[in-house]
């Protein structure tokens, strides 16, 4: 049965394995035909920066791995506007097509899904 699942990405890449585990979860659920939506908030926004070069620290690129998302029909990527501003991240420095939402709209997004997980 297809469920609408919202994944909240709150962790920066590389400092912990959470960001990677979140993406593994997303790709696995998408392979099982689940309807996946991603929300990036807080330090999770740093996962989306386009110029990541983690080879130098012997890790795989988070944004590089996310380029596969459209092939899994995952096109709903939301970012929290206030969190972008707080971290001085310009929309043009992001490596994926995203939609911005306000903090006040996040609870509505949560309520419109069957399952919510955060990484």
């Amino acid at each position, binding site marked *: 049965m297809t469920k609408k699942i919202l994944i909240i990405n709150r962790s920066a890449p590389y400092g912990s394995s959470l960001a990677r585990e979140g993406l593994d979860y997303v790709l696995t659920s998408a392979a099982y035909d689940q309807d996946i939506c991603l929300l990036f*908030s807080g330090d999770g926004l740093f996962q989306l920066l386009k110029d990541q070069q983690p080879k130098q620290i012997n890790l795989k690129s988070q944004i590089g791995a996310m380029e596969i998302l459209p092939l899994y029909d995952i096109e709903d990527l939301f970012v*929290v506007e206030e969190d972008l501003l707080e971290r001085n991240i310009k929309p043009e420095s992001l490596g994926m097509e995203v939609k911005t939402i306000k*903090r006040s709209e996040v*609870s509505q997004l*949560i*309520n419109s899904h069957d399952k*919510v997980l*955060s990484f």
Partner: protein
Amino acid sequence: MTLHLIQRSPFTNTVLKDCLNIADPQDSILLMEDGVYGLQHPLMQQTQLTAYALQEDISARGLKSKNSIKEIDYCEFVNLCSQHKHVISWY
């Protein structure tokens, strides 16, 4: 309606602040594990959300509960989870 499980101390971690930034006024918040140090934090005194804290974790750390925050045990914790549409862990 969402139950937010705060599992980290708000003095060393931003999860409580991040959660309150996006929580709906209808949501509830439960302090557990090191999240119970939130009892000492001004953010918990200001919030209008219904707030709970796990009794076992409070007494384990030698903390005292506050009137505005209801102490609950593990059975009530299970009930709370089943009463909310979503449960989000903040760690």
